[in-house]
């Protein structure tokens, strides 16, 4: 069949491997409610008003920290596999098997019918790229987006990886995306309004000539994959609620070299830029504490130190949060890794 779709850039759909089914014999695995028929039931009963946000109990936060930690572990694993010549399907295989090995479920799998266990978004793909047989090429920038469902709770994180060496424009894009993201994360504390995050990110990247995608947003997360609050990554005045201790949510800006307008592929998932220029994204699952915020998917001593973390003017080294506990942990780890780099 001839594909007549007008793709914006050089990335085109490859061939997907068959969708993986979770073996029925794996009875200990807790499945999310959409695992079998693709349709989430929880959280869709009575639509929340945008400012009504669930406060997690301490027990729930403990569970979310566990799934966040696992999500980070899986993301680190996937990142180490990124190299020229590796297909995104191979990364998906590594991710899928490692998540099951850890006794968890890969949240994207069959979520509204999504065919794979993680999203791999290369170059001009903004988000929701589907792993397939396309080989990564030298200089490709790819976002790997991992979500795990462990013991009834989701942990969602993503990071950029470069296959080989980045060109200078890629470096600028990744640095700007990382910096605006951390700036926004650092702003989070009880009492502030969620709507203010967007302007922080937009104000950082716009002077550098970049644009922020408006069609996708960060989201509340917990026993449900996506819920309130909605986190817009651009300047806005939406009544999206007030930050409070116990809220858990993601910030995940998508920043583009050119236009932030979205082109959707016929596969109903992949979103790319309209001009074929590249897009970058980072994501943490955050929890608000009485004294600030913590990244439940934050890096640890086994994670890779990336150039944007080394060279950031916003925060050098790993960023784990603004709470006293998170700052202490970061101090210890950063002392070690920044020294050895």
């Amino acid at each position, binding site marked *: 069949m001839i594909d007549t779709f007008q793709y914006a850039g050089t990335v085109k759909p490859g061939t997907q491997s068959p969708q993986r089914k979770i073996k029925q014999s794996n009875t200990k695995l807790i499945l999310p409610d959409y695992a079998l028929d693709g349709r989430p039931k929880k959280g869709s009963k009575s639509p929340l008003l945008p400012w009504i946000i669930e406060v997690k109990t301490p027990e729930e936060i403990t569970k979310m920290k566990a799934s966040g930690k696992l999500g980070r572990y899986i993301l680190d694993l996937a990142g180490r596999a990124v190299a020229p010549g590796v297909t995104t399907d191979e990364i998906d295989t590594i991710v899928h098997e490692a998540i099951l090995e850890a006794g968890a479920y890969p949240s994207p799998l069959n979520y509204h019918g999504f065919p794979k266990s993680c999203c791999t978004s290369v170059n001009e793909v903004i988000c929701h790229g589907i792993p397939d047989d396309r080989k990564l090429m030298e200089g490709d920038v790819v976002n790997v987006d991992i979500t795990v469902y462990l013991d009834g709770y989701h942990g969602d994180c993503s990071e950029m990886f470069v296959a080989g060496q980045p060109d200078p424009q890629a470096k600028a894009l990744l640095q700007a995306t990382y910096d605006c993201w951390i700036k926004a994360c650092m702003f989070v504390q009880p009492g502030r309004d969620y709507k203010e995050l967007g302007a922080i990110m937009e104000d950082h990247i716009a002077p550098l000539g970049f644009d922020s995608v408006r069609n996708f947003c960060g989201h509340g997360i917990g026993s449900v994959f996506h819920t309130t609050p909605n986190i817009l990554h651009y300047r806005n005045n939406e*009544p999206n609620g007030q930050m409070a201790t116990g809220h858990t949510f993601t910030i995940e800006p998508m920043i583009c070299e050119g236009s932030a307008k979205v082109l959707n592929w016929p596969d109903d998932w992949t979103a790319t830029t309209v001009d074929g220029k590249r897009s970058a994204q980072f994501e943490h699952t955050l929890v608000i504490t009485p004294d600030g915020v913590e990244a439940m998917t934050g890096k640890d001593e086994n994670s890779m130190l990336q150039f944007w973390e080394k060279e950031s003017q916003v925060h050098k080294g790993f960023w784990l949060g603004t709470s006293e506990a998170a700052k202490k942990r970061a101090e210890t780890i950063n002392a070690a890794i920044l020294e050895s780099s």
Partner: protein
Amino acid sequence: MSEQTTTPPTADDAEKATTSTTTKVDDPSTNKLTPITVITGFLGAGKTTFVNYILKEQNDWKICVLENEFGEVSIDDGLVAESMDAPEDLITMDNGCVCCSVRGDLVRTLGQLVKRRHDFDAILLETTGLADPAPIVYTIQTNSKMSENYFIDSIVCLADAKHLPIHLNEIKPNPTDVNEAYQQVAFADKILLNKIDLVSHEEKLSLETRLKNINKTAAILECTKSKVPLDQILGLNSFNMESILTVDPDFFDTQEGDESHHNLEVVQSVGVTFKGQLHAQWFNMFMMDLLRERAADIYRSKGLLSFHGQGNIKFVFQGVHEQINFGPASMPWQDNEERLNKFVFIGKNLNKIELTKSLMDCLYKEEETEKTDNKE
């Protein structure tokens, strides 16, 4: 994985507003959730008699009565289980009812009850001394284990017709505090006026008028000796989003020039109604601010809404303080039906004119849309 935004990305985008997830609201009864009726009430209103009636005299309903451990309801010692920890300690009456004392942790008790809940038609949660049911409502609706098994069927206030007027007139040490009687009346979906045989016809009418001024939306049921036909207080599904649809339309009649309130109650019901389509974002902003600032003053609220850009979907909401349940009504706006927005607020310091003006400011206006998008 990112979520798709539901508000239109830019003012100049040709995209139309996408609807937010407007899944049909599930009727709790079809999901077989167990209904919980919350009983509030004043000391001496007759709750002991009521609970005993349920456990020993009636035979139509299998009810699990959960009592506040500090309650003044005294049931024969042998009939009340200390807790759900040891299911064998639960004494089941001849009619299938049980009674259990809740020691502090309601969630734990209801959690333990889950495996047995299909033995019961309903749960009666007796809340002595608790004037504000908001924490209970919040827990049952937001805690996932609770909301997967239970729903709030209604909040029922058991009151003593003879003494309620006295309780309502009671002045608290801090005069700006609202006394418990007012709160119980304000929060209720249904008011049981007990001991009706002890008051004269005039006293009864006067009290009922007073109660309607405080809480226009609550149904009033008269009874003697706490004997209430249980099918009039259980299984009503009156604590639902669509309850505004049953509010008397006459309540909303605006009488122009009638500023002098005959209504001198501290807590009042205020009705607002006007035609037109609301601007979703402005309405959300107004409600968010209103409920955030005035949460303590607004006990109950209900609404019926028509939004610009949402076709013929009729939206409804009802809430306790700032917790709002909101969603599409089961029936959409009919083609020949006038789009009349309606609101009921039960609370104190409510200014009907101010509320009406602020809500009408949220009506959709074409030419102003761009201006406010740039407004900080």
